[in-house]
């Protein structure tokens, strides 16, 4: 079976130790997390985890079931095949000189990204989008010299109405 990236969304109780429980489960069953994001939801007391994992469908289904079994996990859905809006945020601190600054700003403009910090030797760029967009911008900025960069990992919602 072919290995693909899957996006799992887990609704979990907002209690101490829940992230540890989920992370421990991945480690124990030998699954690699590509990214995981956790944050509050519209429901008080509940957090939402968006987890990106690679694996074939059977492996990912096994992950999903094991996660679902964890008691603080209310519900897990594999939304890979669904119509979703997925985004991640990245901050990229890129080297900038007087001669490269305007070129960098043009690239940033094309990507509809923002400059959020300007320093004598660098610019910090904020970009939001899917992984491809963030990755492409990173590749284009790489030749100027990347000083630091951080990515949040994917967050995702299914499109349309939520019942």
């Amino acid at each position, binding site marked *: 079976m072919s290995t693909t990236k899957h996006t799992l969304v887990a609704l979990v109780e907002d209690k101490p130790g829940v992230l540890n429980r989920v992370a421990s489960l991945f480690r124990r069953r030998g699954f690699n997390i590509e990214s995981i994001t956790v944050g509050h939801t519209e429901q008080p007391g509940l957090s939402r985890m968006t987890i990106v994992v690679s694996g074939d469908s059977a492996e990912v289904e096994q992950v999903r079931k*094991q996660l679902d079994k964890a008691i603080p996990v209310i519900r897990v859905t594999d939304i890979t095949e669904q119509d979703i809006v997925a985004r991640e945020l990245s901050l990229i601190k890129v080297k900038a000189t007087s001669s490269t600054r305007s070129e960098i700003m043009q690239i940033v403009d094309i990507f509809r990204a923002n400059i959020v910090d300007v320093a004598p030797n660098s610019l910090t760029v904020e970009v939001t989008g899917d992984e491809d967009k963030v990755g492409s911008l990173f590749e284009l900025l790489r030749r100027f010299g990347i000083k630091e960069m951080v990515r949040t990992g994917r967050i995702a919602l299914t499109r349309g109405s939520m019942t």
Partner: protein
Amino acid sequence: MKKTGAQILCESLIKEGAEVIFGILGGAILPVYDTFPQYPQLRHILVRHEQGAAFAADGYARATDKVGVCMATSGPGATNLVTGIANAYMDSVPIIAITGQVARHFIGKDAFQETDITGITLPITKYNYLVTDARELARIVKEAFYIAQTGRPGPVHIDIPRDVQMEEVEFVYPDKVNLPGYKFVSRVHPAQIKKAAALINSAERPLIIGGRGIIISQAYDELKELAEKAQIPVVTTLLGISSFPENHILSLGMLGMHGMAYANMAVQNADLIIAIGMRFDDRATGDTRTFAPHARIIHIDIDPAEIGKNVPVDVPIVGDVRSVLRVMNKEIDRRDHLDWLSQLEQWRQEHPSLEIREDDKVLPQYIIRQIYEATQGDAIIVTGVGQNQMWSAQHFIYTKPNSLLSAGGLGPMGYELPGAMGAKVACPGELVWSIAGDGGFQMTMQELATIAQENIAVKIAIINNGYLGMVRQWQELFYEHRYVATQLQNPDFVKIAEAYDIPGVRVKRKEEIIPAIYKAIDYPGPFLIDFFVEPEENVYPMVPGGGTLSQMLELPKPEMVSH
């Protein structure tokens, strides 16, 4: 009314029906122990090592449909429970492990006897709690018992800081649990059952593989009805032994690495496997790529995560085994499967896996068979791990439901004595045999002191071959007889028993076997028999580790036989 955390714990335990606690105290659990005199309904049994407490709670739970409770102090007390908790987790046994913890303001400060025990037990419990407020204690105990017993059972651990045990708060026992994330299937899915029934009704060579799920859900009658109605032969996993009477014409005994040759041949030739309450452990399946090559598979299990985990299945049915079988049995046609059953009978004749050779020596197989003969199956057998376990599984004929308690998944040597202790405390009217190896016995034999102090009348049979026998067998067969670190220079076990005021006998000759067994049975208290057995006796049949069930080493034809 205000009560201390310790009182709340005891009263909550009583409300949940706990009667016995196996444990050892220490500083961080002392406030709880200090309240015990107020609650004479709770019997505390002081063990000699915390591992024994966890094993005893496990044996207590396996032998009954109750939850076993064990208790220890913080730090080393808690870490000593770990093997027993892991064992209960692997075999789905409902136990509650309660540990003391250092006071809240010491947590994270590396205080004396502080261990992050909830961090340690996280992957080996169904759930665990660190109680940070005495007001939550009653709710947590209620949840713990609920989680341990429902769905797929398992251990729950509660870690209670010392100052929480002393904190005085209002005690209100909740009447309901509220666990939005805890789900288990209680409703049977009729469409899947119809699909399964259609496969069963059209199968020519169907086979049931019964697991511990049948015992947990007490589906003995339902399993028998299914087998008899459609004339389907039954093999069991190690933990499924005693889910189906082994003297039944349709019983083929255990499958797997040391299963009956004809049981494995049945698996490899079946056209339909009905796997009930089992999880396709590698010791049962051998190489999964060659497992049951001609069979479609119906898998009934309460844990959805077990479906498709090790072996792909054709018809999954998630649910309680008993409820599923009750519905399914109505959809099953009466069949006779005469060709299939006569083929199996022929294999059984050609490959008599249970035949014990005529020998004047003290053969372990013969001892187990004689314990069966003396008890006629009316006993609870608690085994260790290794050769003693396999001979006990093979040569005792289990006709009584839930009469074998064996630590299968984790495979911890030393389970047999504390496990038997727990079973005997739970079922004082039953004859409980602890079948040990000489290696494993020395891992938990300090519980002889507990047995003597509490007068727990277990019968102990040591299958003493002077080796870590199963490992020696592997060294003989797969490491060219290089016996590295498997030879044991043992103490005199009869003298050891006597030192604890437990009588015992040593058996060195065949004719002494039967009288010794009767002596043990007739003695009103605990009794030990040290059987000096043939040192290099092997367990057969055997499927080499990772091998296919089709290729077994058999006795009395020790050459590789292929089918």
